[in-house]
C-alpha cells in the first residue's frame, strides 16, 4: 500500500499549478463593448424621444413617402440571433478542445455576420427617401449605419480570434480571446435588438 509520503513524491515532480490568469482582454472587451453600446443606445434614445414628442403633438412621425419594411429588419434580427448561437458554439468547442467544430462555428458566425449587412442595405434601398431628406431619415440612416460599423468591428474581432484558433494560439485553457470576441458580438446583437424594436417594429 502506498504511503502518503510516497504519493507526495509522485506529485512533487509535476509542474506547478498555473496561476489564475487575469482576464485582461475579457474585461477590457466588456468595457469597450459597453462604451460602444452606449453610443448607439444614446441615438436610439434620441430617436424614440423625438418620435414620442411628435406623436404626442398629433403629428405623423415618419414622412408619408418613407417606408420602413418589416422584412429586412426581421431578417437582420434573425440572422444576428443565429450568429449569436454559432458564436457560443465556437467558444464552447474551443474550451473543449474540439477544434473542428470551433472552426466550423467561427466560419458560420462570420458568414452570418456578413449576411446581416445586405439586410440593412436592402432596408435602406426600400426606405424610399434619402438620408438627408428629413430629420427622421437622418436618424434612421445614422443609427443603422453606425450599427453596421459596430458589427464590422465585431466581425474583425471574431476573424482575428478565428485565425488565432487556426494557428493554435487559442487552446481550450486559453480561450479568453474568443470569449472576449463573443462578448462583444453578444452586445452587438443585443444593441441591434434595441435598434430593431425602436425603428423596425415601432417605426
Amino acid at each position: 500500500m502506498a504511503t502518503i509520503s510516497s504519493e507526495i513524491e509522485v506529485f512533487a515532480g509535476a509542474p506547478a499549478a498555473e496561476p489564475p490568469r487575469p482576464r485582461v482582454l475579457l474585461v477590457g472587451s466588456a468595457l469597450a463593448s459597453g462604451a460602444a453600446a452606449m453610443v448607439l443606445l444614446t441615438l436610439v434614445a434620441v430617436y424614440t424621444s423625438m418620435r414620442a414628442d411628435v406623436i404626442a403633438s398629433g403629428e405623423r412621425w415618419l414622412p408619408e413617402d418613407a417606408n420602413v419594411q418589416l422584412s429586412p429588419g426581421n431578417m437582420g434580427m434573425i440572422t444576428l440571433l443565429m450568429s449569436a448561437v454559432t458564436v457560443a458554439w465556437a467558444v464552447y468547442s474551443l474550451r473543449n478542445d474540439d477544434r473542428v467544430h470551433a472552426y466550423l462555428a467561427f466560419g458560420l458566425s462570420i458568414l452570418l455576420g456578413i449576411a446581416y449587412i445586405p439586410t440593412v442595405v436592402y432596408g435602406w434601398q426600400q426606405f424610399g427617401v434619402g438620408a438627408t431628406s428629413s430629420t427622421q431619415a437622418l436618424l434612421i440612416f445614422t443609427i443603422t449605419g453606425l450599427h453596421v460599423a459596430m458589427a464590422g468591428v465585431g466581425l474583425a474581432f471574431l476573424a482575428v480570434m478565428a485565425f488565432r484558433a487556426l494557428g493554435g494560439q487559442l487552446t481550450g485553457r486559453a480561450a479568453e480571446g474568443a470569449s472576449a470576441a463573443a462578448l462583444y458580438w453578444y452586445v452587438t446583437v443585443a444593441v441591434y435588438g434595441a435598434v430593431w424594436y425602436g425603428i423596425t417594429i415601432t417605426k
Partner: protein
Amino acid sequence: MTVTEAPRDVVEAPAGPAPSAPPRGLAAVLGSGDPRTVGKLFVGTSLLFLLMAGVVAVLVGFERVDLSGFEVLDSDIVRQLFTLQSIAAVFLGVLPLLIGLATAVVPLQVGASTIAFPRASAAAYWTFLASGGVVLAAYALDGGPFGGDGEAVALFVAAFIALLVALAVATISVVTTVLTLRAPGMTLRRTPLFSWSMVVGGTVWLLTLPALAGVLLLVYVDLRYGQQFLGGSDGMYDRIAWAFWQPTLYVFAVPALGIIADVVPVFARRRHHRHTAAMVLIGLFGALAFGAWAQIGFSVDGESDPTDWLYDGVWIVVGFLALVPVVGLLGLWAATLSRGKVRLGTPLVLALFAGLLIGGGVAAGAVTVIEEADVLTTTWASGQELLIVAGTLVAAAAGLALWAPKLYGKLLPDGLVRLGATLLTLGAGVAAVTYGIAGLYDQPRSIAGSLDGVSEIDTVETLNLVAAVGLVVAVTGALAVIAALLVPSRRRPVADDPWEGHTLEWATTSPPPVGNFATVPEITSEAPLYDARYTGASVRTSESTEASA
C-alpha cells in the same frame, strides 16, 4: 519529500504583459508604452491645455465687466470662447489630467507590473494630443460651436469625437488594470481609494463619453450631409452643454474624492476611518453623477419641451442626494484627522482645499435644483462649474504633490506648490462666489444671453470685475503649480517612501524600476504598509527597494 513552499507573505508579481527594457532618447517618449511615461505626457499636456483654458476664461471674464457691449473681442469670437473655456477645461484639461495621474499611479497602487493594454494607452495619448490640437485649430479657423466656417465646424466635431474615443480608451486601460491586475490578496474592498475611485469614475465616464460622442456623431452627419435640422453650429452647444451641468459635471470630480481619501490617512498617520464606507460613498457619488439622461432634447416641430426633466423628480432628487456622499466623506476625513497625529504636509493642505471647493460646488448644485431659486440659467451655474473644476484641479495637484516621487523621482518644492494651490483656491473661490451672487441678480450664464431680467447692472458689473480678478489669481496659481513641476529638486535622491504611505506604491523605489515590483507582498488589508509600520505585520517590500535601502 521535495516540497518547496514560498513564504506566505511573498508571492510572484501578478501576471500581466511582460515588461520590456525602457527605450532611450526620443524613443523613450514617442514609442513608449511605459505607463509612467504615458501618464506624465498626459499630465504635462493637459496642464498646458488647462492654462490656455484659464486664459480664455479670464478673457471671457473681463468681457463681462462692461455689460453694455463687447469691449475686448468681437461678439462672435466671445461666444466661441465662452464654449471653448468649458470644453478645454473639462475635456482637454481635467479629464486627461486625472487619466494621466491614474495611468502612472494605479498600476503601482494595485501592485501590477504595468498597465493593462499599454500600447492602447500610449495610442490614446497621441490621439488625445492630435485631436486636442485639431479642436483648437478648428476654433482658430472659425469652427466650433457658433463658428462661421462650415468645414471648420465639421472638423471640430470630428476632432472632438476622436478626443472622446481617446479618453475612453485610456480609461479602459486604467479600469481594466484595477479589475484584473491587482496583487494577490488585494480584493476590491482592499483596493486603494484612488484606484477605486477610478473604477467608479471611469465606469461612469465610459457610459457618459460615448453618449456625448453619439450625439456629436449625429450633429456631424447633420452638418456634413443633412440640412442642419439640429441647428447647425449655432445649435451645437445645446447638444453638448449637458456635459458641463449637474449631474454630469460631478462625474469628473469622482477621482478627486479618491485622491483626497488617499492623502488624508497618510498625513493623519492613521487608517482611513471606515474604509469600506468611503468606498460605498464614492460609488454612490459616481452613480448619482451619471447624467447622460439630462440632455436638452431635440425638437422636430419646435413645440415640445426640450428640457422636460428640469425641476422634475429625478433631477431634484439627484441634486440633493449628491450632497450625501460628499458630506459623508468630509465627515470620514474629519474623523480620520481628529483621531490621528496630523502632519500638515502640502498634499494634505491641498486635499483640504479641494474638499472644500467640491463640497461647495455640490452644495451650490443643491440650490440649483430648487425651482423657486431659478438660478440654473444664470451665472450661479457658472460659479458651481468653477467650484467643481477648480476643486478637481486642486485635488489633482494634491495627487501630483503626493506621488511626485513615483512620477518624477523628486519631491515638488513645497512653498511653490502651496502658494500655487492657495492662489488657485482663493481665486477660483472668489470668482465662483461673485458669479454666484451675480446669478442671484439674474445675470444670464450665456455671455450672449439677454440682460432684460438683470437687476442692479452696476452691482453685477462690479461683481464681474471681482470675478475676473479672481480668475487672474487662479490662473497665476495654476502657473505656479506647473512651475513647481519644472523646478529641479534639490533633494536627491528622494526617499522611496517620504510620506510614510499606507498603500503599495510606497513599497517600491522612487521612481519605480521597470516592472514596478520584483516581488509583491500578499495583501491582507487596505493599508498593508501601515500594518507593517504600526502593527508589526509582516510585509516584505520589493527587492529593488531593499537594494536601494
